[in-house]
């Protein structure tokens, strides 16, 4: 333990700040944490890693006073503290930025920043003073906006920075970031890294929760890994632990991460999905796109490029207003997902797992079966669980969904397993074209790996696959062809399966060229160049 502390870079004399020791917490008799510890020293960036359901969120909730531990101690420096509420934790300088944004979209940046603590003059909020007060904080995190701008104008990455600024206004000494990078671009990440390093150097301790190990290694000096609510690693210096070790620590077994792409070139079949000059009610114009049978086409772009919207138009959740959509060589009219499934065997694994991908309150079997009931029902719609079972058991098994019962509600599964269920229903439906929209966002390494394998195997078996992802590494790794989208248009198309660096460079060039041509000034709002 002492060794680790001494070696931790950036630890100024290793002054402990927030220390959670041997924390146990159970919910309704189920242990979420057992003797878990998280020990921070002043001026470090500390990674907190674990699969979904490993207890990270519970630990964070305890550190911020949302939950109270059943056992164990919390110390700030040498002083033992008891956080009775989130407010109490904030008073001790512990602030948290959650994965879900908690901004009031209709409020200005200044209002969001100082929400609940607006400067008051004679009982009225002094708007001018608020704007004045807010400006330096925005400056500090590099948000070059007028404080009066509405928060809805911010990109997800900028919103993240605003949340951090909000935490800073509370003079926090410990900043907990819960998956801050799950929906931001590479450029925004680089910017965030700069801000976090500055904060660290000025003495703030930062906890960084992320599934992306590259980011963890780029940013953090030590790591605490949780599995099943217990510490597997407690503040281990990352200089001594390999990525493979971390993965092994997280999942509790050795997994050979899936690596494919260029190595095994697939022989693509005939064109299955063809878009010819398609425009949509959502704002696409002249979109040409072809996906062959047995081919993975990666659709890459920044958030807001119109990729999800295109997928929605293909499955009939939005109207196609011009051009032609062909499926299996024939012109197709898809009015809704029912048509897409029934007549064209198109499946869509939604990016919005909780609201559109799954019915969280319903059982696993009902969720997976939904796409096949129509096919399996007898006369007058008679159906039974036994009749559905042979069709949903294989995909569940293939994806290795970890569950107790097929009758348990999907909402009780971990994020990764939920995503597997969301994909399993389209495997059960025997879709010939499958659109995966951000299939690995917010899921753990093992589940991510399982999704990657599944997508590759499906393509090997002849399924046409359109893979929408904001994770360029994932796209490069999986796709046979990469289509770059920006501003609801196709910007570029290139062969997949190559090296990451040159592909990444060309993709970014395409995107910057397009954005510079379209809106020359809008992207200066965030400090630093949009491309790295």
């Amino acid at each position, binding site marked *: 333990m002492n060794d680790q502390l001494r070696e931790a870079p950036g630890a100024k004399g290793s002054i402990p700040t927030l220390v959670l020791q041997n924390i146990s917490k159970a*919910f309704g008799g189920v242990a979420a944490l057992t003797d878990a510890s998280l020990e921070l020293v002043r001026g470090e960036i500390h990674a907190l890693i674990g699969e979904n359901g490993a207890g990270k969120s519970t630990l964070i909730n305890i550190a911020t006073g949302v939950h109270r531990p059943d056992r164990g101690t919390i110390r700030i420096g040498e002083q033992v503290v008891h956080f009775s509420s989130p407010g109490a934790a904030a008073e001790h300088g512990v602030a948290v930025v959650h994965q879900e944004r908690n901004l009031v979209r209709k409020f200005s940046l200044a209002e969001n920043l100082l929400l609940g603590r607006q400067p008051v003059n004679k009982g009225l909020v002094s708007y001018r003073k608020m704007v004045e007060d807010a400006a330096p904080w925005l400056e500090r995190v590099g948000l070059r906006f007028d404080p009066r701008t509405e928060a809805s104008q911010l990109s997800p990455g900028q919103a993240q920075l605003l949340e951090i600024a909000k935490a800073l206004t509370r003079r926090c000494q410990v900043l907990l970031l819960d998956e801050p990078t799950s929906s931001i671009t590479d450029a925004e990440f680089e910017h965030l890294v700069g801000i976090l390093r500055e904060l660290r150097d000025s003495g703030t301790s930062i906890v960084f929760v992320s599934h992306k190990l590259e980011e963890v290694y780029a940013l953090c000096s030590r790591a605490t890994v949780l599995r099943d609510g217990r510490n597997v690693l407690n503040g281990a210096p990352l200089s001594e632990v390999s990525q493979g*070790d971390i993965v092994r620590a997280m999942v509790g077994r050795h997994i050979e991460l899936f690596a494919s792409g260029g190595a095994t070139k697939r022989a693509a079949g005939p064109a299955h999905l063809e878009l010819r000059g398609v425009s949509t009610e959502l704002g696409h114009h002249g979109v040409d796109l072809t996906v062959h049978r047995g081919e993975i086409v990666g659709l890459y772009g920044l958030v807001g490029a119109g990729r999800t919207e295109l997928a929605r138009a293909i499955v009939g959740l939005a109207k196609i207003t011009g051009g032609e959509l062909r499926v299996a060589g024939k012109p197709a009219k898809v009015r809704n997902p029912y048509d897409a499934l029934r007549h064209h065997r198109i499946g869509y694994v939604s990016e919005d797992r909780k609201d559109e991908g799954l*019915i969280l309150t319903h059982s696993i079997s009902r969720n997976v079966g939904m796409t096949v009931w129509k096919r399996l029902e007898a006369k007058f719609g008679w159906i039974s669980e036994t009749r559905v079972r042979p069709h949903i058991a294989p995909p569940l098994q293939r994806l290795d969904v970890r569950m107790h019962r097929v009758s348990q509600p999907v909402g009780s599964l971990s994020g990764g397993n939920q995503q597997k269920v969301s994909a399993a229903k389209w495997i059960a439906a025997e879709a010939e074209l499958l659109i995966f929209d951000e299939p690995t966002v917010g899921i753990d390494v093992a589940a991510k790996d399982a999704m990657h394998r599944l997508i590759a195997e499906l393509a090997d078996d002849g399924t046409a696959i359109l893979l929408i992802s904001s994770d360029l590494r994932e796209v490069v790794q999986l796709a046979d062809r990469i289509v770059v989208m920006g501003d609801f248009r196709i910007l570029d198309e290139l062969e997949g399966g190559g090296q990451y660096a040159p592909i990444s460079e060309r993709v970014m060039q395409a995107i910057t060229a397009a954005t510079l041509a379209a809106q020359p000034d809008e992207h200066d709002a965030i400090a630093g160049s949009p491309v790295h």
Partner: protein
Amino acid sequence: MAASAAIDGQLQASAPVPRVWPSAIERVREALGTQTSAIGLIFLIAITWTAFGIAGSGFLGSYNLYSIGQLAARDAVLGMAQAMLIVVARMNLAVGSIGAVCTSLLGYLLVSAGVPVWLAFLLVAVVGVLAAVLMGVAELMTGLSSFIVTLAFLSAYAGGALLFTGGRQYQISSSIVTRLGNGTLFSSAICPLVAIAIVCGVACWLLYSRNSLGWKMLAVGANERAARASGVNVSRVVLAAYALSGLLCAVATVMNASYELNVNAGFGSDWLLPSFIAAVLGGVALTGGEISVTGILLAALFFDSLQSGLTIINVPSYWIELPEGLVLLVAVLLDRARRARRRTMQPRSATSTPEPDAVVAQ
């Protein structure tokens, strides 16, 4: 490396794979486990019957039990009519007005037109279904909430029924109808209408547990977006739910008319409250996606036992409406408590989403 050894030390043999597919017995047990509201209702009914049996004379007499059964049978069918739309996360405020339309038509056909009974029943069913489907079409075309749409049709249908009959009374004399509502079944304490309610209940149970339409209705009610994205034809399912609701309104009309016999277009104006009480107290989630047919039958029985008991102990009729309203309020509160309890029973999902108060750090 020390870290590596620590990891190895933590590696444990994975737990044995549990039986993922429940056996038939386990399925029955799971189904019973979800019937908490039904079990609670059986207790409530037992308490009510005991209390009024002691306090009010004649409560447990066959004459009184007969009339409780008569009313509860109709209210149970009304509860099912309401539940059909609550299940798909909608509601039918026009149950009573569809009842008024159907009652007027039934009276006209049997009394004025002299149509055979079976044909009259058939036509009433068709009109009930059409009246409800029309509301469904209006909802889907306008995109308004079912609350607004059915509220509009509530007054339109009630007015239409009055216009059609011109306020006439119809004295139904058909022996089949009379025997249905005033005859006896097995014992002098049981009205044949009870059998109709049970048949409807069995049909509903089959729909929701063994028919893909029922499964789709539950899916649409629980999460319409997800159901649509998974290839469920949501419009068709919603229209079917309206149609079934209308059909059950028509059945309730015939039941009601069969014991009242002297009917007019004002019938149905007091159906809305019992329809909600039977459904919600019976355990149908107001948010949609859940059903308990047994619960509906029992809730109707409880509700009408309570009403009858209050009458028997001479509570003035003006006061009886107060407990009616209270029962609905309690039912809604129970519904919310059930939901809250279920949330805490899923610790994993509860811990992975930050509670809203986590951000109110001041």
